[in-house]
């Protein structure tokens, strides 16, 4: 063995290996992150779509309920129910109404004047 070859050492270059490992890991992490984030994005997209659909359904349900309320509380329906349930409600005749004049002198409502002569008799 020559003298020169004796002096050659095969030491491991840790720094170089680290460089490669770190850079590879960084690249791999970046790639995986990209894929992970892309997946997340798609998942959140699905969630968004689902929520939008629920919102649309809720709005539609609201419209349906609002329409039902409007129909059930319409005069036509109420009058029919009034007639059907025979609640015995009759309009008050004009001569059965007592009207009071509001005072304008700020004295409150302790004193009132009955304007319907019929009730003063």
């Amino acid at each position, binding site marked *: 063995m020559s003298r020169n070859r004796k002096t050659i050492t095969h030491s491991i270059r840790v720094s170089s290996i680290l460089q490669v490992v770190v850079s590879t890991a960084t690249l791999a992490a970046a790639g995986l992150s990209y894929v992970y984030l892309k997946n997340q994005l798609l998942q959140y997209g699905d969630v968004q*779509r689902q929520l939008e659909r629920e919102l649309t359904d809720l709005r539609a349900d609201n419209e349906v309920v609002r329409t039902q309320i409007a129909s059930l509380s319409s*005069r*036509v*329906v109420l009058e029919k129910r009034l007639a059907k349930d025979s609640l015995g409600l009759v309009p008050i005749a004009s*001569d059965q109404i007592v009207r009071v004049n509001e005072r304008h002198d700020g004295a409150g*409502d302790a004193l009132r004047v009955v304007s319907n*002569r019929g009730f003063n*008799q």
Partner: protein
Amino acid sequence: MRWNAQARAVTVCFGLVGLFSVYSIRLIDLQIVKHEEYAALAAEKHVHKQTIYARRGIIRDTHGEALTENLPVKTIVADASHLRDPMAVAEAIANQLEMDPRELADKLRTRRPYIVLKKEIPEQQADQLKETIRIGGLRGVYFEHDFVRVYPNRSMLSQVVGFLDHDHKGVLGVEKTMQDVLQGTNGYRYIELDRTGREIVPYRGLETPAKDGCDVTLTIDMGLQNIVEGELAAACAEYKPKDAAAIMMRPQTGEIMALASWPTFDLNKPGESKPEQTKDRPVVDMVEPGSTFKIVTTSAVIEEKLVTPQTTIFCENGHFQYAGRVLRDAHPLGMLTVHQVLEKSSNIGVAKLALQLGDTKLYEYVRRFGFGERTGVALTGEIPGLVNPPHRWSKLDITRIPMGQSVAVTPIQMVTAMSTIANGGKLMKPMIISKIMDPDGRPVATFQPEVVREVISRETTKKITAALKDVVSKQGTAQQAAVLGFRVAGKTGTAQKIDPKGGYLQGKYVVSFVGFMPADDPRFTLLVLLDDPVTKAGEAYGGLVAGPIFSRMAEKVARYLDLTPTEEVAPLAANQKKVVFREASRD
């Protein structure tokens, strides 16, 4: 020639350069020159334009009560090119769609990309159908958004509110006149779909949001409308007229508080209506007004100071010959004051006043009161009526026009003219739209009352009102139009119906009453008009038919509006119990 190594290398290099040049040119052609073309082709394959639907605005009454609603429904469509087994799909959904499976399968076998299976499927039913499709793993059936316009009050105010056609465009009433405001604007977004047809949300493109339609608030009060329509329907059941109309207006502003037209129809079933039911008579029908028109001539002669209410006129004992024809009164009348001419509704008296006024001035006042022109109310199909200029008048017209013949007016013109008297001489433009609100409830536009012109002075209106008050008295022609506790001012009208073949129809009349209440501080003007009512012989008069209807309506309206009586109410009968009145609080 011998190929040495260098020559071969050069040749190969040139070959490669040439090859890559061809590729490069092709790439440039594809990527740059034809970029738009291929991008559009690619987009067509996987990018879709998704519509974001706008909500149609709601029509409301003056208190915000909804007169229309939008009921969401679905249209079921199929893309036959996506179907694997049309028969399986048909069998799965036919029952829920209430269709024959074979008929449905035949539809699906046409291989067309867009087949409408059924329209107006309620949301709940559509959800069940979606579930069936999901469980069955079926493809090719889709659900499209749609809505049905619902009218909760059905036939009430039908001609004013109007309805929509199949494309959701208004075809009558406010639905038509306010179409642009109500409909809103659909939005859209560009989306990309994956191979299963699901949207890839992160790849959403340009998005334009939908703009919902605005709500329209009317001047109509549904409480009053209910009273007016109820009484009009009852009167029509009693008198069986060909048609009828009633209009209530606030004279100070021209706001239409109620507007009824009979016969009416159910807005939820417009297809079942007949043409005469969809006519908004107060604006599209014209009639000879009859004696209600006498307010024009009497106002004119007093305004022109040709006479005073106390000026006397000889009424020829009911028989006045003019231009070779005889003009008659319903009852023979002698000397009457101008006040009494209106009170007794003398045809001869008002004809003589018109002769004194002259044709030019008479025509001027007829036009000043708004006859012969559209009022401009926001309702469909309004007509101007018919008022000929004096140069087209016959010699008789000067005596016929003052009593409401030889002119044709719309009911809304008549009520507007009477409102002019009630409003101190100012002619107001009739209003039916009060305001427009955006979907968040913020006002977009508010309509203000509009004075068209000052027709006559306040002094003249006071004199006319005094006479009109006496019309609704024991001496007048409309005693039955009186309302307990209130003084009413008004005028009756009984016009013979025009025969389309010429002349007048015997025994057929248009009867009307138009008045305002309380007479000295009017809160409303009300017109009641019946076309050809069936009555006993000699009873087809405005005062006997339309007067009592007015009275019944006005009494209920006074109660609804909580008007304080201006007259003393008759005392209770002895057998009636007194109501115990406690010194109650304001609550």
